[in-house]
């Protein structure tokens, strides 16, 4: 692993502290700090100290650490034996993205090559790769920010959210995903840093998607990001995180927690596409609490990482609440995408729908792990799950773990799963029309993903297509 900071490790430096007093990402960073490797009480205390957090947050972090230590890692799911906490910095530099490299030259050639071929502009490439900050988007962002502020919309990085809106923050923080929930949620709770904080007031519709991209300079895609999104009653908005271009990071561990509260009759969408470099363990908890008449949609794309475990969930707690998950996973050589969804129907007439599409290639493996739970009294609840797996060759693997628990007689639950292999007849047919073999394969894959891809914002769909073409190149042989 490259040593990513140029700081003197003994310095524990604290120069230019005045820059943290105000949210202003124009200022160049002039100080450095990183924790020692590994996770213990001292690290957690230091994080809280450098962030100048209120006492309750420090106590929260420490309690979470205790829970993590008691719980230990899960004993089910993908192989995580390569993940060693003693080799990980749990906190690096307060005002810059974690895991960044200091110059463009340090980015591996294969990643740079991928950017070039995806046609990502160099300025953007540098940001994606974690080099420097995205000052170019500042103007656009400020204009949108003004519009949002007029409507009372809060859109900040989570650290700033805690400072500027302590009451709202405290009311909702950790109410959807408590540290007790799972080991990685507990670890995140102890060391979280960055992420987005979104509050959309009652009845407000936000036309333009709120994109985490705008907050890049403020650690929104950090190693342990903590995102908190609140849609007040009747609000309507779309939040987008991530990008299809590969996000290079020297960190081997990413563990985020995303909490969403969709209050009565709100409509909230959260879209994320991750394409972490293939050394990353990506273990994320995404959950929404969906109240009466509200609708929550997760769009989840998992393309990168070494191992991903991610199961976006909807807790449908109010009558007529609706939850949706659309997910795409691509498991190439050496990757294991263990993704799925959880739909908890805890109120009458709640509805949910899950569409999951996975593609595996070479030594890649994709798993669908899903839970549909219908509580007693959730009269007339309906759920439909459809998961389709496509194998590109004879060595790729896929498996499905559907869990269905129904405690209500009037509920309707449907589950459909298909596994298909890239069909030689389809390839021959497309080739007989003039498409080269890799183009034919890419076209079949794109068609397979189409039902989900067409729900993506256009620029993401375009990037996804390019990416599939890149993945298909060299798969002929």
């Amino acid at each position, binding site marked *: 692993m490259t040593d990513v900071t140029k700081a003197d490790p003994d310095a524990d430096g604290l120069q230019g502290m005045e820059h943290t007093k105000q949210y202003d990402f124009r200022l160049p960073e002039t100080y450095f700090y990183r924790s020692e490797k590994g996770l213990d009480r001292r690290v957690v205390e230091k994080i809280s100290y450098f962030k100048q957090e209120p006492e309750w947050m420090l106590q929260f972090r420490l309690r979470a650490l205790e829970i993590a230590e008691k719980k230990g890692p899960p004993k089910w799911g993908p192989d995580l034996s390569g993940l060693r906490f003693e080799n990980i910095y749990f906190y690096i530099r307060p005002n810059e993205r974690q895991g960044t490299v200091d110059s463009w030259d340090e980015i591996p050639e294969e990643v740079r090559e991928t950017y070039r071929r995806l046609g990502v502009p160099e300025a953007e490439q540098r940001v994606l790769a974690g080099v420097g900050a995205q000052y170019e988007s500042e103007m656009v962002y400020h204009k949108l920010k003004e519009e949002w502020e007029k409507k009372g919309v809060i859109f900040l990085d989570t650290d700033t959210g805690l400072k500027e809106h302590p009451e709202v923050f405290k009311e909702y923080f950790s109410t959807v995903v408590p540290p007790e929930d799972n080991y990685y949620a507990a670890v995140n709770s102890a060391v979280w840093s960055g992420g987005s904080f979104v509050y959309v007031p009652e009845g407000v519709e936000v036309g333009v998607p709120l994109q985490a991209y705008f907050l890049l300079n403020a650690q929104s895609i950090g190693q342990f990001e903590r995102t908190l999104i609140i849609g007040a009653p009747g609000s309507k908005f779309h939040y987008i995180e991530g990008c299809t271009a590969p996000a290079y990071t020297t960190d081997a561990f990413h563990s985020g927690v995303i909490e969403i509260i969709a209050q009565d009759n709100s409509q909230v969408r959260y879209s994320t596409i991750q394409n972490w470099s293939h050394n990353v363990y990506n273990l994320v908890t995404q959950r929404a609490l969906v109240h009466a008449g509200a609708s929550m949609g997760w769009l989840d794309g998992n393309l990168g990482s070494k191992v991903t475990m991610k199961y976006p969930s909807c807790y449908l707690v109010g009558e007529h609440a609706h939850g949706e998950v659309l997910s795409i996973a691509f498991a190439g050589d050496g990757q294991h995408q263990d993704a799925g969804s959880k739909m908890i129907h805890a109120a009458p007439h709640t509805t949910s729908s899950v569409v999951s599409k996975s593609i595996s290639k070479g030594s890649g493996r994709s798993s669908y792990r899903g839970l549909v739970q219908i509580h007693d009294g959730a009269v007339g609840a309906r759920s439909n799950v459809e998961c389709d797996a496509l194998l590109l060759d004879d060595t790729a693997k896929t498996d499905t773990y559907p869990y269905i628990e129904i405690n209500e007689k009037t509920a309707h639950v449907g589950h459909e799963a298909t596994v298909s292999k890239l*069909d*030689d*007849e*389809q390839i*021959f*047919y*497309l*080739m*007989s*029309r*003039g*498409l*080269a*073999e890799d*183009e*034919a394969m890419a*076209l*079949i894959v*794109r*068609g*397979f*993903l*189409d*039902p989900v891809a067409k729900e993506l914002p256009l620029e993401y769909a375009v990037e996804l297509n390019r990416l599939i073409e890149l993945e298909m190149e060299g798969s002929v042989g």
Partner: protein
Amino acid sequence: MTDTTLDIRNLHARIRGGETILRGVDLTVPRGEVHALMGPNGSGKSTLAKIIAGDPSYEVTEGSILLEGQNVLDLEPDERARAGLYLAFQYPVEVPGVSIANFLRLALNARRAEGEEIGVMEFYQKLQKAVEALDWDESILERNLHEGFSGGEKKRSEILQLLVLEPKYAILDETDSGLDIDALKVVSQGVNAARGPDFGCLMITHYQRLLNYIVPDRVHVMVDGRVVTEGPKELAMELDSKGYDWVRDQVGA
């Protein structure tokens, strides 16, 4: 003078690692002509069609397929297509999530150099013309390739693609099978629209019926993996009334 034929010479082929099916096929289709290939079930007609297109599940053990002088046996199926060959499949596959319009644009661009992709107007006009020739509705172009298509619609789609891609030579593998009379008329109308001095065609069929709508310049008869006889269009009528046993007897097959 340059060669303007699709010329199949002494072609022997078998299922990869299996049974021999073609035992010395000789057949020539000049550009500008439409030929019919008839013969009983199992005589190797469809196998010949797939081998011309480059189906990897067969292997050629002897002979050649010359596309205007170029032996295509060493070419991949896509290279053959770009060189001007087209196969209308007997059983076209479904490709979910891929619209016909999108697919045809990719197929056309595959024939062009990078940076010289087909323009929107030109593409649209081509599609419109093809759709009209088949009495079809334009909405068909937005449907996914053969997904939920009836047998007849699939055959119609094969001819639609032929009209858009404008190959030099097309092989129609039992394009008439499974069609009712109205569909047969419409499909024939499409093939006739493609006819001209720059288009050669080999129609594989069991039935004289098709040849009432697409009148062939010449008829070849295949039995047991060989072309055993050929003649003018009247030969098809004779086959229709006398059956294939008559040919067998004639050639002593």
